[in-house]
């Protein structure tokens, strides 16, 4: 399947949940926030949120800023 991740079409393994996606992207779950189709996914719910083909996913984190 695929998802639009941060605006880029990305091929993903089937049956991936949000926790799996974060690990697939080699990120640490406590440094990012994930939004799926406009809804923020609470960290406690990462392993209960399955991704579907064509999902719009945003993965964001804090960066330097004023």
């Amino acid at each position, binding site marked *: 399947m695929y998802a639009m991740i*941060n605006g880029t079409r990305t091929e993903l393994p089937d049956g991936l949940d949000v926790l799996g996606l974060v690990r697939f992207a080699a990120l*640490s779950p406590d*440094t990012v926030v994930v939004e799926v189709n406009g809804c*923020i996914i609470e960290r406690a719910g990462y392993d209960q949120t399955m991704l579907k083909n064509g999902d719009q996913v945003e993965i*964001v984190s*804090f960066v*330097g800023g*004023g």
Partner: protein
Amino acid sequence: MHISSHSDSRTNSDALVIGGVSLTSRLFTGTGKYASDAFIPRVLEASGSEVITVALRRVDLTTQTDTVTRHIPEHMRLLPNTSGARTAEEAVRIARLAKAMGCGNWVKIEVIADNTYLLPDGYETIKATEILAADGFVVLPYVNADLMIARSLVKAGAAAVMPLGAPIGSNRGLQTKEMIRILIEEIPLPIIVDAGIGKPSQACEAMEMGAAACLVNTAIATATDPVAMAHAFGEAVRAGRRAFLAGQAPVSAGRASASSPLTGFLFDS
């Protein structure tokens, strides 16, 4: 010595309270533009700052990137900004994502649709403030130094008002000084001068005028020695605050006023 310890205790009891949090330092800092984020903990130690801004961005999935929060000590209060937002709706979305990071409920609203001067959109900022304050956020909006906008922000539930001294990152100082003075007079919220402050004397002047705090990023981060400049800003903000509390002596219309007695001269016949 006695006088100095008296003024110390007076300054120490002079906490700035925002969103129920009591702050000793009146210098807010930022995390942008450092040559290396490794400067950040040393800058915070040198300045005494207790509040620091961060921005929120998409993770770059093609490269391994460092996390800025790794360089921010635990005791700091994070003030995520909504930079990148061009509308109230976008600012609200960014604020909610930032809150989901689990670093508190403070947010600096920054809604900018002008790419040359990076001036804030007052109308959209007020709308975002209203929504987020009602949602339990501690909202610190970045705005033009404008009384009517500031009054609307008070009604919208802002925790402070953050007028700009000059355009972001310009280091041009307190160009909006008269308008900031009016905000300090009229607005019953902390006025935190954000943006444009380029050197410690300008931060000191803002504090002497009665500003509640200053937010300084570029002037520290891009100084030749950021840690030494952070120290200088910390001292300037403390000096300015003390001077404000002390009350400025009267200014004459132009004539001199002798500081020494005008009697008992040696040469009086």
